[in-house]
């Protein structure tokens, strides 16, 4: 196997890296790929919680990278989705226990055992970021429709290009009605500034919180718009680039369309 290592990063915190890693990982595995998701947020782990696997942790990523255990000892098999594995972060260590060279060596090993390895990068551009991108072949940059998030995504994109990694963009937590009113940046505004390929647009969705609380993967929730968006993002990542990008629609749009139909529009 000669898998791909994809880092999920954003610069800014709390924009949805962990949510995206869990959902895209689950969607790729659901397509039949062998997938490992790695929580690189050492000291602040939560990918395990989002995936509902926190009670099965024995070894962690630091143990695996340092060679204290084998990968198949540390990787936790998902409860629901076949072929999906989690390598949890260490909660007690500091990010400095790993260095980028460790990660490059480790990357060569895991590449041979999985089709896709997704690295859930911590916020910031310090050591945790360096470690997460060290072995990466590709990058997914998560950005929220907010000026400060765009600024940080831009910074990270510059750093990724400097490492010869071409990043792709996911805009998360879009509130269509706010965009329609002009109270939120549109994805066009964001792509204008960041000028990288767009992988997908994910709306703000209550199912995200429900999923975290119940441990039911977002992509398996039938009427989750965010879950469907992440499924399409996974397909595009997996090479189905002709899947169209769907623009999240709000209630406002719906009423406006009906209004137009009856000649009341504008």
């Amino acid at each position, binding site marked *: 196997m000669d898998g791909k290592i994809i880092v999920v990063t954003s610069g800014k915190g709390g924009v949805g890296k962990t949510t995206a890693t869990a959902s895209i990982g689950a969607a790729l595995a659901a397509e039949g790929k062998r997938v490992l998701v790695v929580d690189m947020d050492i000291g602040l782990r939560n990918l395990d919680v989002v995936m509902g696997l926190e009670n099965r942790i024995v070894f962690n990523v630091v143990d695996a990278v340092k060679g204290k255990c084998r990968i198949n000892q540390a990787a936790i098999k998902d409860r629901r989705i076949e072929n999906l594995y989690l390598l949890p972060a260490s909660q007690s260590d500091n990010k400095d226990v790993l260095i980028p060279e460790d990660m490059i060596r480790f990357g060569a090993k895991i590449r041979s055992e999985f089709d896709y390895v997704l690295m859930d990068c911590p916020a910031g551009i310090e050591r945790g970021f360096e470690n997460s991108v060290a072995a990466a072949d590709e990058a997914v940059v998560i950005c929220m429709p907010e000026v400060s998030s765009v600024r940080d995504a*831009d910074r990270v994109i510059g*750093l990724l290009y400097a490492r010869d990694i071409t990043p792709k963009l996911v805009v998360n937590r879009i509130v269509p009605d706010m965009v329609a009113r002009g109270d939120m940046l549109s994805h066009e505004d964001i792509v204008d500034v960041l000028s990288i390929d767009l992988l997908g647009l994910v709306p703000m969705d209550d199912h995200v919180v429900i999923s975290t609380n119940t441990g039911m993967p977002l992509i398996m929730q039938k009427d989750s718009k965010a879950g469907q968006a992440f499924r399409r993002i996974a397909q595009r990542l997996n090479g189905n680039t002709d899947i169209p990008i769907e623009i999240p629609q709000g209630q406002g749009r719906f009423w406006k369309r009906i209004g137009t139909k009856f000649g009341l529009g504008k």
Partner: protein
Amino acid sequence: METTDQNNAPVRLKGMGDGLCVSLDPDQPRAFIRSELTRLFQPLKHLAVNARVILDFGEAEGDEGLVDELGVFLKENFGVGSVTQTPKRRGSSEDFVRRRDVDRSWHHYRSDVLMLTGRVRSGQKVTARRHLLILGDVNPGGEVVAGGDILIMGSLAGTAIAGQPDEVDTIVLALDFRPTQVQIGSVVAAGPPPSRRRFPEYAHVEGGHIVVENYMKANPFGRMPWPEVR
């Protein structure tokens, strides 16, 4: 109608301070110039010996070869001391600057412009010794710095610092001008409030303040009488 007026003669001589000034048209045949010089210098006899002679070619371009050749001729035949050309009116003459810039600027200048293509992203900084030209955009959080002018053929949304350290005559120009901050020399201004307009604007210093104007309307350099190297 031909005149033989002294002032229009192709070779003229006049005393000048402690030397002799010869005005001549370098485009005349060499033999003619020599015979005219002989005609003018012969009567001077010992007055010409060791004299300092200055050749003035007027508006025409006298080449060094001609100066040397006539110098040898005058020294051998009349014993003059030194022969030089009138010093060029360098810099002081607008006429000179105009001809230099229009006709021969490429012989005199290596480029003082750093020209880049692409996008300056947040956290990135580009510095030019003199002028900076970017075919691309400057994102919010990006910084461009120049000793001279800054020209952005795209949108400027980051910080632009021109005329460093103290050239307040420089400008910052962008096709889509919405910088976070502009600095020219040591004068600083916050960027304009967000707007949807997209037309070329430029910032310059006027009375100690940074002023932003529509570039096409102000056309600040269009009124210059001729092109000049900046």
